[in-house]
């Protein structure tokens, strides 16, 4: 997009942001910007996702994650104070509303056209998170103000791939439109610089469950019902209620070595059957792993160093994470390494849930031997927003 058009648009948003009624956003130069196809060819079966609600979209809404994504981690120049941060998130929320059709028709058309969504938003969602540097500058007692510790599995993780100030996670059925939308949003933030970004994809899903790049089912045991999500995922009280603490880990996987192992060896590493995802201790795919079941000789049916045992929250006294991972594939590095694997994305009420689990994985999980962390960060997922409650209002 041309710099000129971007500036026009930002000026238009600034005008809209002055508090005028939605219909007053007439100064947008709409006529020359509106080139969205009113009858896009690929829209069949794709339902728009409401950006507004108690929680941001892109976490449990839609229930089955869209097949494509672009995840961008940004840094901000300087340290914004509370007022500037509230303004920044409010503007971001308004742009997301406009992009995804939850604003006046003119604003929607302008934003979609500017961002390159020429077939409309489809099922696009964009989720916004704030890094610990920004959150702790506002109030170090807030959830999300604490950064991740150094994990044993962080060895070799480049400094520029750790942390970050702002997370923009866009998901949709149209990979290019999704990427355009996130890129446009990132470019709209004054003083922001993309630290790193990653295109994402995932195979056919049933809710959160999909096969990961190792060929095994992922996202099987996650909180699903309203009660479970309230207990395990959403911040329960205070101004940030309805938000969550997110952790992302870009995990390069040694899939060729893993696929070279026998099925039995692979299943022992994962703790589940490859065919249907059922626990090695028995039952069906969604049945709980029986951690105590043993052979008569005293060996665990779910092996001692299997991922299913290592990651089980009962050992660390943790809540259950909502995991919503994607695959990535950046091809082959000059040294022949395949730079492909799993973008682990999880949401929980407290950072401890992830931290204690990752420590345990580093100590007891054979799957870690196939895994190299290549990016890592934690972000406070702001509570949801609406026309009357701007994104980030909780911070003011």
């Amino acid at each position: 997009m041309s710099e000129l058009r971007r500036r026009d648009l930002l000026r238009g948003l600034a005008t809209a942001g002055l508090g005028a009624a939605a219909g007053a956003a007439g100064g947008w130069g709409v006529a020359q910007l509106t080139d969205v196809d009113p009858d896009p060819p690929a829209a069949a079966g794709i339902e728009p996702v409401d950006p507004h609600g108690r929680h941001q979209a892109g976490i449990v809404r839609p229930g089955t994650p869209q097949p494509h994504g672009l995840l961008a981690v940004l840094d901000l120049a300087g340290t914004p104070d509370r007022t500037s941060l509230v303004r920044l998130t409010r503007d971001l929320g308004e742009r997301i509303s406009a992009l995804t059709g939850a604003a006046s028709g003119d604003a929607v058309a302008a934003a979609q056209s500017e961002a390159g969504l020429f077939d409309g938003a489809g099922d696009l969602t964009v989720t916004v998170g704030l890094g610990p540097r920004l959150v702790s500058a506002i109030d170090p007692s807030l959830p999300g103000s604490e950064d991740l510790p150094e994990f044993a599995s962080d060895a070799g993780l480049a400094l520029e791939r750790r942390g970050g100030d702002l997370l923009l996670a866009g998901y949709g059925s149209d990979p290019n439109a999704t990427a355009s939308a996130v890129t446009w949003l990132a470019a709209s933030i004054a003083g922001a610089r993309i630290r790193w970004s990653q295109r994402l994809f995932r195979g056919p899903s049933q809710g959160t469950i999909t096969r990961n790049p190792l060929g095994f089912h992922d996202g099987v045991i996650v909180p699903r019902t309203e009660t479970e999500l309230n207990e395990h995922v959403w911040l329960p009280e205070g101004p940030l209620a309805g938000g969550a603490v997110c952790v992302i880990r870009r995990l390069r996987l040694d899939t060729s070595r893993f696929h070279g192992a026998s099925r039995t060896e692979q299943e022992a590493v994962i703790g589940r059957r490859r065919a249907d995802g059922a626990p090695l201790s028995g039952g069906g795919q969604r049945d709980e792993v029986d951690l105590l079941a043993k052979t008569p000789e005293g060996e665990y049916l779910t092996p001692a160093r299997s991922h299913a045992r290592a990651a089980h929250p009962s050992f660390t006294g943790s809540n259950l994470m909502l995991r919503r991972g994607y695959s990535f594939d950046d091809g082959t590095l000059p040294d022949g390494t395949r730079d492909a694997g799993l973008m682990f994305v999880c949401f929980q009420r407290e950072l401890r849930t992830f931290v204690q689990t990752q420590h345990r994985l580093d100590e007891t999980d054979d799957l870690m031997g196939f895994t190299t962390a290549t990016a890592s960060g934690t972000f406070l997922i702001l509570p949801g927003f609406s026309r009357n409650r701007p994104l980030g209002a909780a911070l003011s």
Partner: protein
Amino acid sequence: MTLALATLLLAGCSSPAEPPVADAPSVVQVPADAPTISEAVDLVAEGGMVLVSPGTYEEEVTIDKAGVTLRGLDRNETVIDGGGTRAFGVFASADGVRIENLTVHSTLFYGVLVTGMHDENGPLAHGGPGYTELDPSEFPPVERFSIDHVTAYNNGLYGIYAFNARHGQIVDSYASGSADSGFYVGQCEECDILVARNVAERNAIGFENANASDSVTIAGNRFAGNRVGMTLVSNYQEAFTPQRENLVVGNLIAGNENGESPAHALGAFGIGLALNGGQRNTVLSNRIEGNPTAGVLLSNAEDIPSLANEFRLNQLSANGLDAADISASRAPSEGNCFADNTASTSSPAELVSTTCPAEGATSGGGTLPELTVPRGLSFLDIPPPPAQPQLADLESAPDRLPDALPAVAADEYPLPAVDLLADRAAVT
């Protein structure tokens, strides 16, 4: 006169709330009065006694009637056989139950179990942890229990097991061939539990305590010839972390390198006493010898460190390392101290010279000798134990169990000899 009346009133207050069924017998004989132990328990009056003649009983016995005494007339010949298929031998959920002078073997999970953690379908303890914890406040602990002169062998998880139970004792008993631990005390606060004069051998672990705290005394036991002698563990899978404030006194914890046992599921072998996130325990006058990995092993349980444990006057010798601290840097141990022990080898090397008190001293990062761990044997294939001594008085109806145990003086259990309770053991 006033005093006598007060005594009567107190006695009245402490008697069971439900009136006894008028014609229920106070003593029921098996098989003379009832063909099975379960039917005898149904028949007997609250506070009564079931006497079981020698024989093999293929049943799961549930005691949900307060104050019942279940007593075998021959400890070695009155046998409850789980057949490798039944979940438990005896399960007591009522207050004030005594289990005495019998043998339980070949159950899938528990030989003898006392727990308040149950529903109408049976015990919930270790039914397999779900993703939502059971709330201990919904399951009041069993109050007052006694397991005395009981033999439990070749049971799939635990031989003799008290979980969510208080004010009780496990004494003069024997456990072998358990795929988890021979004896287990878990999940209680202000437990007031005595584990004394027992023998555990040929188990994956001799004795285990997870989250049983304050006033647990483990005294004068023989924990020898297992894969791991005994453990004090904090475990997030159960309530009341961290484990704390036990007295471990006068035990023999020796030669725990016996491959004629089921495997320890995490591969542990050659360890005497392991503290995994245990805190403020006192370990006094124990003989801890011949454990080829480590005599005393300290580690963290996830983010729970091993803190402020005191080791005094123990005979630590001929172990792979007399003491080791392998705590991870995420939860280093702190304030553990050693005074007047014979220990000479440790990792880190300065560990055993950490004198008491040792406030603020952190430790960890030790390394253990590498051992070849033998494969486990099926819990059903471990040789049966030698004949065990009988309860002295088989005739008299016992007194009501006390509300609290009499205090144990540490000097009742001095440093034991190497042959402590060897006459009851197969592995010597």
